[in-house]
């Protein structure tokens, strides 16, 4: 399915087909609502294309299968949801240390623990900061529409191989389950040459070893410095965000993922009421656009973070603002997305009463 024709498609299926278009060679997965359709779709497509599909015995196994597969230079991924992604944190730390281009799709549900299958955005911390050991960073892309599910899937596979670093596509149950018109187009990114490191057998060369740690302390220290040099490069090249009506705004609504839709609609309503409201939306949650937010804060613009968790991105926005202006939070932990009306009235209150921290609705 590669054409510019618009099709009405579910986010989950869009991600699955985009992965195929991006050259997915192996899929490993274990079912969990609300992303199971990805695995179901690929179980039909992959064997037909002569590609690998494995129903893994656990998420633990699935992500480690990806680790093995991508070490040979092919594109592979697993997809899962919140509480099961928690099981994969160890492997993500390894993938960073091993510099392996793992692609993981997380279609978020509610937590903590088993939580429930309601949509939520509670995995910001788990994705951006991670639960694995050691110093490492993952590239995190957060789509807000089904079209972006496609576009960012293409980008995820490209960035993973370009930087030899794991990438998380952070969607949510809403995006996974909803249908929206979108088109696949063609994967816009070039192929990445992996021949200098991929494991293909020691033919006409020495054996290669992919590992995160060695008994040599100096080498280990240097390895981590090298990783962080790479992260700096990623920050410089790949930090991306969207902004709307920023120039004259005195309040900037900030959200990630599918909540972006709601803040844009709320902005329109508030503008109609004569309030100078803009929108800022990080596309890469990691690397996070600290610098841009910091510069906007220095101009005196206030921030209102709107998210479906207890204020996880809120902390990063405050860190970026660093006391230069005010930051408020409008949030709900999970379930029904904050409505445009709720956001509008909360922002009106902030206008009246000033900044409010943690306005749980």
């Amino acid at each position, binding site marked *: 399915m590669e054409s510019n024709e618009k099709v009405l498609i579910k986010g989950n299926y869009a991600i699955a087909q985009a992965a195929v278009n991006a050259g997915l060679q192996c899929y490993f997965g274990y079912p969990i609502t609300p992303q199971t359709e990805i695995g179901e779709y690929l179980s039909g497509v992959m064997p037909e294309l002569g590609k690998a599909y494995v129903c893994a015995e656990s998420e633990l196994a699935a992500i480690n299968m990806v680790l093995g597969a991508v070490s040979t230079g092919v594109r592979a991924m697993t997809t899962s949801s919140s509480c099961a992604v928690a099981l994969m944190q160890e492997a993500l730390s390894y993938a960073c240390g091993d510099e392996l281009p793992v692609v993981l799709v997380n279609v978020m549900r509610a937590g903590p623990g088993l939580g429930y299958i309601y949509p939520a955005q509670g995995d910001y911390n788990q994705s951006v900061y991670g639960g694995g050991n050691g110093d490492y960073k993952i590239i995190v892309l957060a789509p807000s529409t089904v079209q972006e599910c496609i576009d960012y899937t293409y980008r995820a596979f490209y960035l993973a191989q370009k930087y030899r670093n794991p990438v998380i596509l952070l969607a949510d149950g*809403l995006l996974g389950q909803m249908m929206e*018109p979108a088109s696949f187009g063609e994967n816009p990114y070039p192929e990445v040459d992996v021949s200098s490191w991929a494991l293909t057998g020691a033919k006409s060369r020495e054996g290669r070893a992919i590992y995160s740690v060695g008994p040599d302390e100096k080498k280990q220290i240097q390895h981590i410095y090298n990783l962080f040099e790479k992260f700096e490069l990623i920050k410089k090249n790949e930090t991306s965000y969207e902004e709307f009506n920023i120039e004259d705004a005195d309040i900037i609504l900030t959200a990630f993922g599918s909540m972006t839709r*709601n803040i*844009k609609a*709320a902005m329109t309503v508030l503008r109609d009421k004569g309030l100078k409201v803009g929108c800022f939306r990080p596309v890469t949650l990691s690397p996070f656009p600290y610098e841009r937010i910091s510069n906007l804060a220095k101009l005196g613009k206030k921030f209102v973070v709107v998210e479906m968790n207890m204020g996880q991105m809120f902390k990063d926005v405050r860190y970026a603002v660093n006391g230069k202006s005010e930051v408020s939070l409008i949030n709900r932990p999970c379930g029904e997305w904050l409505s*445009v009306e709720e956001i509008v009235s909360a922002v009106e209150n902030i206008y009246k009463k000033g900044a409010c921290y943690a306005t749980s609705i």
Partner: protein
Amino acid sequence: MEKNFIIAGFGGQGVLLAGTILANSFMLADKNVTWYPCYGAEMRGGTVNCEIVVSDTEVSSVHKQDTDYALVLNQQSFDKFVQRVKTGGTIVANSTLVAETKPRADINYVFAPMGDLANELGTSKVTNMVALGVLSSVVDVVDKNFLALGFEKVMGDKKKDLIPLNKKALEIGFDAVKI
């Protein structure tokens, strides 16, 4: 313009398919549209529903508590969603299975024997298409011709033989209620 629809009924009544066809009809009419199903435990107990939002601009909330229009195919769904229709909104009900009551005074009611009309065509399987026909006759933004195109798009080439019957169901639904 942004309008919300909820379509609800028993599993097997073609509720999710009807929503998909409706959403496709909006896409073919070059409108912004989203389709969002109930899923998981919400589905237990035999009823299913989906929400469709159509808009001239980008759709904001795809899942809302209240709705402009509810299309309900069974009693349970009527009882549940009559409470979620906005003041001034409309509930369109399948009177084959729904008692013609009007529990609220601030909304509009349209009753049509969708199941019976489908059976007259020889199969209750087209109840959903009759329902969409009824909907298109009472809601301006829903276009019967785009619904037919939407059906063709959803069915693809493999099920072309189903088109005549379903188009007929649409027409019968469209003519069932004269306002």
